[in-house]
């Protein structure tokens, strides 16, 4: 009897591992392929694998004004949006966490609700709004849209790190003579700093690679790198996009590593009560 159970267990174990392996392969395959193809020396899109390697597509990417303007715009836009969103998100999180605010849960849910709205709709809605009030400047529209996109994330991350800071610490500061503002800057902020910065980095990364939102809000003068890439993709499917993708991937990976160093990825995902 135990023999069949053992066999069952073995099959279970094997298929489990196999499934994991398969999923990992499926998730990694496109990325690996793209990276390899980005070094393809051929000047046309030929079959995999590339016979010869070169940096040509990277040179094409970095030498292309269209992409470089987009890159610059993206960096500026995402930085500004992330900073605004972090300030707003931190302000809201601090007030909601430290004090008894009426309808706290409702306000919290409200501030997190953009997470549920498809980004396309956010983009479209901001566009509708902007058109109807006469704002035609692409950059302004983009900032508006990206701030709303990012704020729920900065709010959530800051709230998560504030929750870990005991209420008694703020109260101790208050009873020792600090007013609310001083208590925040002296006690809460230093302890929440890593969480806040993590939110900033997270917001920046999300804003940087966001395309469906930007697609509705850009104008010929201000477009983002993802918009440039998407437009090129629909016009001509070439390998400059592969090198662009790899550049973005490397950038994002660097940001994730920075996040891990600062904050610890475990906190980003939340591991439940029973970590084995």
């Amino acid at each position, binding site marked *: 009897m135990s023999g069949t159970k053992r066999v069952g267990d073995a099959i279970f174990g094997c298929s489990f591992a196999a499934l994991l392996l398969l999923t990992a392969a499926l998730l990694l395959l496109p990325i690996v392929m793209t990276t390899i193809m980005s070094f393809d020396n051929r000047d046309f899109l030929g079959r995999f694998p590339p016979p010869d390697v070169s940096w040509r597509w990277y040179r094409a990417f970095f030498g292309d004004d269209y992409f470089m303007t987009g890159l610059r715009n993206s960096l500026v836009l995402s930085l500004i949006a992330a900073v605004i969103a972090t300030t707003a998100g931190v302000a809201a999180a601090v007030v909601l966490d430290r004090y008894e605010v009426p309808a706290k849960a409702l306000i919290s849910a409200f501030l997190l609700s953009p997470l549920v709205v498809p980004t396309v709709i956010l983009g479209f809605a901001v566009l509708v709004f902007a058109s109807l009030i006469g704002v035609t400047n692409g950059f302004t529209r983009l900032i508006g849209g990206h701030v709303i996109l990012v704020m729920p994330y900065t709010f959530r991350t800051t709230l998560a790190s504030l929750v870990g800071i005991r209420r008694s610490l703020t109260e101790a*500061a*208050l009873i020792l*003579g600090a*007013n609310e503002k001083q208590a925040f800057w002296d006690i809460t902020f230093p302890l929440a700093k890593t969480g806040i910065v993590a939110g900033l980095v997270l917001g920046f990364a999300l804003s940087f690679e966001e395309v469906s939102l930007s697609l509705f809000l850009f104008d010929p003068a201000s477009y983002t790198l993802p918009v440039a890439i998407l437009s090129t993709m629909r016009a001509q499917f070439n390998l400059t996009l592969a090198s662009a993708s790899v550049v973005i991937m490397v950038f994002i990976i660097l940001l994730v590593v920075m996040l891990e160093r600062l904050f610890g990825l475990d906190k980003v995902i939340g591991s439940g009560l029973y970590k084995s």
Partner: protein
Amino acid sequence: MSMVDVSGISKSFGPLTAVDDVSFTVESGSCTALLGPSGCGKTTTLRMIAGFEAPDKGRIALGGRDMADKRPYERNVGLVFQDYALFPHMSVAENLAYGMRRRGVAKSEIPERVRRRLAQVKLSGYEDRRPSKLSGGEQQRVALARALATEPEVLLLDEPLSNLDAKLRQELRGELKCLLETVGTTTMIVTHDQEEAMALASRIVVMNRGRVEQIGAPREIYDRPRTRFVAEFMGRSNWFVGRLERRPDDGGLLFRGETGESFAVDDADGLHGPVDLAIRPEQLEIVDAETPHALAGKVVTSEYLGSKTHVTVQLDSGSVLLVIFNKSGRGEAVVGDLIGVRVPRDGCILLPRSGPVPTAPA
């Protein structure tokens, strides 16, 4: 003059009434304990005195000044939190200095005052340590030093010894009492531990379910509790239900229990008729079975606990009593022994009848 004057304060959180019409005063320089089980409202009361919550009704005055609408930092109060709340990103010295800086003490004076306070709590040289590297007892002392550093009018302590293990608690209790007496600040302690309250405070406010049950000196509260709750909370009791009568021969008081026991009691503060009677286990004495005026019974259990022995006795009348005696008492009490229990005339707690009493020692 009273440094703390609390009159008629009440506080509710939604449908829950945490504090209900509580009033008491604390004399300048004295130490008062708010004592009661969890949920009795003592912590809420403390928080209202500190300024973290505002009372729905009533008035709080510190040093004669009404504290309505005063934020915590506008009150001259020191608070030692239950979890100590030491700032983890600051050193011990910086923790102590924080209150002084915020209250405008001259920068040049601060290091010397920090040094003196640390010496006062026997932590000299700890200036540069981090709170996370301190033991529980050390953290507690730093928290105390920090609260005293701002030279407050009133010092509040929230369960100061609960986070420490039993042995440490006893040690630090003595040190704490010494320190409080040396410093002389008006002090209020919130605790659920009646030993702590009795050891440290000169007056105890016993609270239950948001209300004040009794206010008095420790001895008064222990020997003469005025309600059933206080009697049961302050220590173990053996309860009897019965009547107080006058003896025909000499006019002395006699207690006649419903379960059949009867013994003489001393002055009962004018009580007469139906009463509840409680006797502390350590007041009872185990004597030989034949001793006159002793209640006859049999030893049911006997627990030797080193410094004391706990014995439960089943009386012939059926009641079960708990008797506690230390070494200088009877010696061994073996299970099954037939013995007598002597009730001291002046050792009984008498309360007007108020419903069923526990049949086994509480």
